[in-house]
């Protein structure tokens, strides 16, 4: 399973390509990071509820003039985006983390002045200090477990351990089918996968048979 940071960076590169940019900018990187942790196009970091849909629209609009200028097949990191990676690496080190996590990349933007982060500052009243403070306690349980490769928890048991279960959380379902948790959430959102809600709570459960029903025989002639 691809880790969250790789997913976020690939998303950033795709974003740059989609806009026919020659460079992966800080804006592409920040949007890629936020997209990866978003749910229903909303990112909740501490007190801030960020509407990603609006942010992406604003970014695309502002970048329209650049369309067609660059070779979409080859994108390189801009020097400023590269500096964000270096700062994130320092943050990870300070955090005693052996790997650069998504939180380190996000917190590395605290002192940046790129357009997307400037918009966050303007719209949500985010300052560098508030951003660092919000991220210091931000660790969505399920995402964090996958990112750090931490030992087994109820959310990230191995597929083998899950084989006898009748009901799965979305994260367990992702492990069971070896897909990204956001894939499972997407299936639930679009109605492709049935989910049950525990009475009066937000928590979702998925029946084993509904998960198995997602699998269908592969026919080589299919395109």
């Amino acid at each position: 399973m691809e880790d969250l940071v790789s997913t976020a960076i690939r998303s950033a590169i795709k974003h740059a390509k989609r806009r026919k940019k020659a460079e992966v900018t800080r804006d592409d990187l920040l949007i890629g990071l936020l997209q990866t942790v978003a749910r229903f196009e909303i990112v909740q970091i501490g007190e801030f509820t960020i509407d990603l849909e609006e942010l992406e629209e604003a970014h695309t609009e502002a970048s329209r003039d650049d369309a067609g200028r660059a070779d979409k097949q080859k994108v390189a990191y801009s020097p400023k985006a590269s500096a964000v990676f270096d700062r994130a690496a320092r943050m990870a080190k300070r955090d005693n983390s052996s790997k650069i996590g998504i939180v380190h990349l996000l917190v590395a933007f605290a002192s940046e002045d790129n357009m997307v982060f400037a918009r966050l500052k303007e719209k949500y009243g985010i300052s560098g200090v508030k951003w660092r403070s919000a991220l210091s306690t931000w660790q969505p349980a399920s995402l964090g477990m996958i990112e750090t490769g931490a030992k087994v928890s109820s959310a990230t048991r191995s597929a083998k351990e899950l084989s006898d279960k009748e009901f799965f959380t979305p994260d367990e379902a992702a492990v069971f089918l070896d897909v990204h948790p956001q894939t499972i959430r997407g299936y639930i959102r679009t109605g492709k996968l049935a989910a049950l809600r525990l009475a009066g709570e937000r928590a979702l459960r998925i029946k084993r048979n509904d998960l198995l029903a997602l699998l269908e025989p592969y026919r080589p002639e299919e395109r």
Partner: protein
Amino acid sequence: MGCYVVIRNLPGITPEALAGAGLRAKSCAAEMTEEGTPVQWLRSYFIPETEQTHCYFEAPSFDAVKEVNERANIPFSKIHEAQELLPDAL
């Protein structure tokens, strides 16, 4: 596919900055592979005494190795084709 060594002279570089560069190299290699040019960053060695870094890549050509480093925005001094020798193979 060939093996290539990328030599970088990075005076004053910190291990943390190397980690940031590594993440960029990894993502660019994955991107180029997806585009149809299979490039893989194999491993790197930092030599503190000379402040040099030797990074090994597997790629179809010299140009592909050059391109992945340019995309990752990691400076380099030289790229050489290399031959891999493994103790187990001898």
